[in-house]
């Protein structure tokens, strides 16, 4: 009788702890999102998007330079990273499915996807920024592309593997060349999944700060020229949040709110599409 009771009590204690830990996770999620909503939403106004910053310490001004810079750098990263990622993914899934490169490469890519992003920033600084002599938006794009590629490779590889083998055989039976099978048949069948990988990659890079600190750096003015230093939302949030002015803090909250909900929306959409594909 005693043992029975002890087992029951133990059961409830540990299951209770499990409930508590789920509560812990959800508590912090809602706390962070709630704070962002409370502090960020009310500071969003038209000036934030249409005005350049005013000199430090003065009220007013906006983050137009950072929004534009952020979009340009993210687009650059996506344009550079997507084709390389998809091509490598196709090789892993189709051409070299059982080759040595694919076998080693898959493990390496899985490792690289969690690699410290600040290290990538330091490397791009050494390769691009130092030889040219100044920070530039383009270098930021390259750093982000390098961070995005592993995400795209993994998703492309997985999504193309989901295409049934019979589809490929049917195409071969009609006399298609291997490249035609890969590009016209398999890639087309898996295009939603591959596109989702790109969205996941964009979601990942648009929240990155560390690699941009040493590459695109910052700029107080709006610029469209990727060979110049360029402001981004994340670096600006870093600068403003660490700075001493209340007006900076307000703008940092507003920018964080937009950034976070944009990123979360993109990743929820991508996950939803992938889940639907898999079943």
């Amino acid at each position, binding site marked *: 009788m005693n043992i029975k009771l002890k087992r029951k009590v133990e059961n409830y204690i540990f299951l209770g702890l499990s409930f508590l830990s789920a509560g812990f996770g959800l508590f912090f999620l809602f706390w962070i999102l709630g704070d962002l909503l409370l*502090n960020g939403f009310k500071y969003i106004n038209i000036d934030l998007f249409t005005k350049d910053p005013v000199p430090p310490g003065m009220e007013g001004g906006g983050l137009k330079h950072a929004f534009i810079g952020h979009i340009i750098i993210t687009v650059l990263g996506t344009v550079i990273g997507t084709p390389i990622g998809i091509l490598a993914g196709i090789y892993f899934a189709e*051409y070299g499915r059982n080759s040595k*490169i694919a076998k080693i490469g898959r493990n390496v890519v899985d490792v690289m996807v969690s690699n410290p992003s600040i290290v990538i920033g330091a490397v791009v600084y050494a390769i691009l920024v130092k030889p040219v002599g100044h920070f530039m938006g383009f270098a930021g794009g390259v750093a982000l592309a390098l961070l995005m590629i592993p995400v795209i490779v993994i998703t492309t590889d997985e999504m193309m593997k989901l295409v049934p083998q019979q589809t490929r055989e049917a195409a071969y039976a009609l006399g298609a060349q291997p490249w035609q099978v890969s590009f016209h048949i398999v890639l087309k069948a898996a295009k939603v999944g591959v596109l989702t990988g790109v969205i996941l990659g964009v979601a990942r890079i648009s929240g990155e700060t560390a690699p941009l600190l040493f590459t695109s750096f910052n700029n107080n003015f709006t610029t469209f020229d990727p060979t110049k230093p360029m402001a981004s939302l994340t670096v600006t949030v870093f600068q403003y949040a660490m700075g001493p002015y209340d007006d900076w803090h307000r703008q940092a909250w507003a920018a964080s709110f937009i950034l976070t909900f944009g990123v979360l929306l993109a990743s929820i959409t991508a996950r939803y599409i992938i889940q639907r594909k898999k079943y």
Partner: protein
Amino acid sequence: MEARKKALNQAKLFENVFKVVLGSAALFVGILLPLVIFISLYKESSLAINHFGVINFLTSTDWDPVAEKFGGLVPLMGTFIATFLATLIAAPISIGIAIFLVELSPNKLKPVFSTAIELLAGIPSIIYGMWGLFVMAPLFGEKIEPWLTENFQNVPLVGKLFEGSPTGIDVMTTSLVLSIMIIPFMSSVVKDAFNMVPSIMRESAYALGATKWEVIKQVMIPITASSIAGGLILSVGRALGETMAVTFLAGNVNQIPKSLFDPFTTITVALANQFTEADTAIYLSSLYFLALILFVISFFVLYLSKIMLLRLEKKWKV
């Protein structure tokens, strides 16, 4: 006949071009990229390596840009301490969350809860940092830490951890925020592993009269042990390289923390704060040396986690 041969040759040429293009993309991503990273970091840090020597750099606590004396022990220890504490907090909670998601949550709500936990991983790290600076640091500095000092200072052994002036910019808040960031990675790995356990194993245990917790403790956890270890190591790898959240909260003071309330520095904090300010070649090179150390450690840690995770897959997928 001629035309057909020509078309065939053209197709073959096309085929080879594609093979080369795809292969070189794969080669670049899968093999060359980490090599390029390693080599360029090594090249940039060679000045510091030659000047200070590897062993000397790793054991020296100097960090003096004026005297041009640099050592990596302090940021390295800071990285290890923050990672260790964050993993210590995150590990039991992540396993708890995984158990909740697999065994306790109502089936209909499972996707909702999983997505919610995964959203924690989607929040950009700078947001964690800023939120930590504006919300957590004042809360801890003004309320929680003074309370801890008051109540635990005189407890032997533990008391030492709660000494010093509570500011909220210290080891404690950094580790806590870091742990929240790595929880989703570990819990999603453990959850996937739990889901891979064949239901017949669970059902057999239930049939023998085991309680839910006994099934978890004696069936699920032993079977998935290598995956749990893999998830743990993965989250360690994530925590090692985390930059922005830590930069806001660590305080960037070059000292090995003696209590939980001491400000400190890590490799990533040193890089983020000092990289663009480094004005001498040896200063920059020392920072690159730190980056190289970080890259090598995280690469091996993450690779180890990959090996651990593959073990379970091999066991059950055959």
